[in-house]
């Protein structure tokens, strides 16, 4: 087992454990913190998968901004302690396990990599060698995907306005 694989499996295990803990902890704060672990592990996996720029974004945006927002809201609403009915009973657990399991097997069945998936070799590593880690993502983003990129800014603006309107007590 090479180092890359070792790193991959380690962080995969951390991510899955984090996710499992996240959905089973009663306390929302605990859930949030376990989720942070998953997100960080995913960032590590991104690095292994030649997406260093995305990994950095993952840490900044998800683990940093979004999760902080979650924690803020949890604390704002004083939900730190576990509620009495936060987790569903055994029936809910059975349904969740059954459907989640079925979905997992379905996804696994569909996710078997075909020949087409690996035909081109490691394209990303090659690109990064030619254009640099950031450049490989930035170039298409600002040429081919310029219009979606610009529209994203509008989306974010709308989200800001929407959040303010919804969250404010009185306008």
């Amino acid at each position, binding site marked *: 087992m090479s180092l890359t694989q070792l790193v991959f499996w380690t962080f995969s295990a951390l991510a899955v454990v984090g996710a499992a803990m*996240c959905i089973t902890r009663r306390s929302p704060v605990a*859930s949030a913190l376990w989720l942070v672990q998953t997100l960080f592990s995913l960032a590590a996996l991104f690095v292994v998968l030649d997406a260093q720029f995305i990994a950095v974004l993952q840490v900044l945006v998800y683990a940093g901004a*979004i999760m902080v927002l979650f924690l803020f809201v949890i604390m704002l*609403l004083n939900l730190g302690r576990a509620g009495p009915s936060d987790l*569903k009973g055994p029936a809910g*657990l059975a349904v969740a396990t059954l459907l989640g399991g079925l979905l997992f097997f379905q*996804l696994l069945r569909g996710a078997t990599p075909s020949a087409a*998936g690996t035909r081109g070799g490691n394209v990303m590593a090659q690109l990064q060698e030619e254009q640099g880690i950031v450049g490989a993502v930035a170039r298409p983003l600002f040429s081919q995907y310029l219009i979606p990129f610009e529209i994203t800014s509008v989306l974010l603006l709308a989200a800001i306005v929407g959040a303010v309107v*919804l969250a404010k007590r009185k306008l």
Partner: protein
Amino acid sequence: MLLGPSLAVSAVLFALGVAGVLLRRNAIVIFMCVELMLNAVNLTFVALAQSLGVAGQIFVFFVMAVAAAEAAVGLAIILAIYRHKQTVDLQNINLLKG
């Protein structure tokens, strides 16, 4: 090249996210599970981008932007609901009842 294992991990994470949504009643936790699902998908994109080109990574970029916007608005909605009903327990929120 870790495409197969990546997809498998992604599937596990996604299924866990779905199970979480099914299992929980707290709106904020359900929301977090949704974020978990988004991240599982992101992992798929990144894994496939490795061999199919940079488009997958750019998609992840956009997913993050949308997730950020969604988180902001969604949490604002949860805040508003909490103000209205003094709870974020979905059992007590049934405005959609026909």
